[in-house]
């Protein structure tokens, strides 16, 4: 399995997500955590960029971090899969490596 990339910064504050997308091989997974979950919201100025990246990367979002920030599952971009902490572990062990974009 290819790499699991995690992004924990808001896409409006830092370019972590943008750099991640630019350096992730096709078929990689991206898990949005902490302030990174804001990139999973529908209707934002970065949503088109994420939707474009989803054609070649699989996106996940950490459900508890969404809940903490008042980001409901109905507000997520279609196709982004919420995972719980156990799901995070499954993703980590299910990929060759984990790359954290801080």
């Amino acid at each position, binding site marked *: 399995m290819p790499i699991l990339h995690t992004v*924990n*910064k*808001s896409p*409006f*504050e830092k370019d972590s997500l943008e750099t991640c997308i630019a350096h992730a091989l096709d078929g990689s997974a991206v898990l949005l955590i*902490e*302030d990174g979950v*804001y990139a999973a*919201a*529908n*209707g*934002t*100025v970065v*949503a088109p960029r994420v939707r474009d990246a989803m054609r070649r990367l699989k996106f996940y979002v950490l*459900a*508890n*971090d969404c*809940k*903490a*920030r*008042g*980001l*409901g599952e109905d*507000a997520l971009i279609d196709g982004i899969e919420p995972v719980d902490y156990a799901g995070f572990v499954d993703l980590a062990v299910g990929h060759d490596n984990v790359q954290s974009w801080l």
Partner: protein
Amino acid sequence: MFRKKLMYLNRRAPYGTIYAAEGLEVVLIGAAFDQDVCMAFVGDGVYQLKAGQDTSGLGLKSFSPAYRALGDYDVTRLYVERESLEERGLDAGDLMPLTWEDEDDDWAEKSSIHVVDRAELTRLIDAQDVVFNF
């Protein structure tokens, strides 16, 4: 006594860093000094006011309810930048309701949240004696 015009300018999302929580602490402490205080929410700072925050899954205390105390501390003007909301797919209806009671108007309950555009916020910042940037 001369009352200074103070603005607390909030630019960060609530949980990823300590800025928002500490900034709110400073506002609540500073409110004891009887100054002319307002708050502004710009950029990711608008996320601080998002409705429905529930940190129970993080094992972390939510400071979101503390914003509701602001009205009792006479911090009754919270300016939220419209452009920042729009960039994030949000509008005023996505924010938690925050109110204060106007003693000069038979204790009428009024909204503390004022959505303003960037040009107006620019003028508001310019009108302050001190701006605290978090």
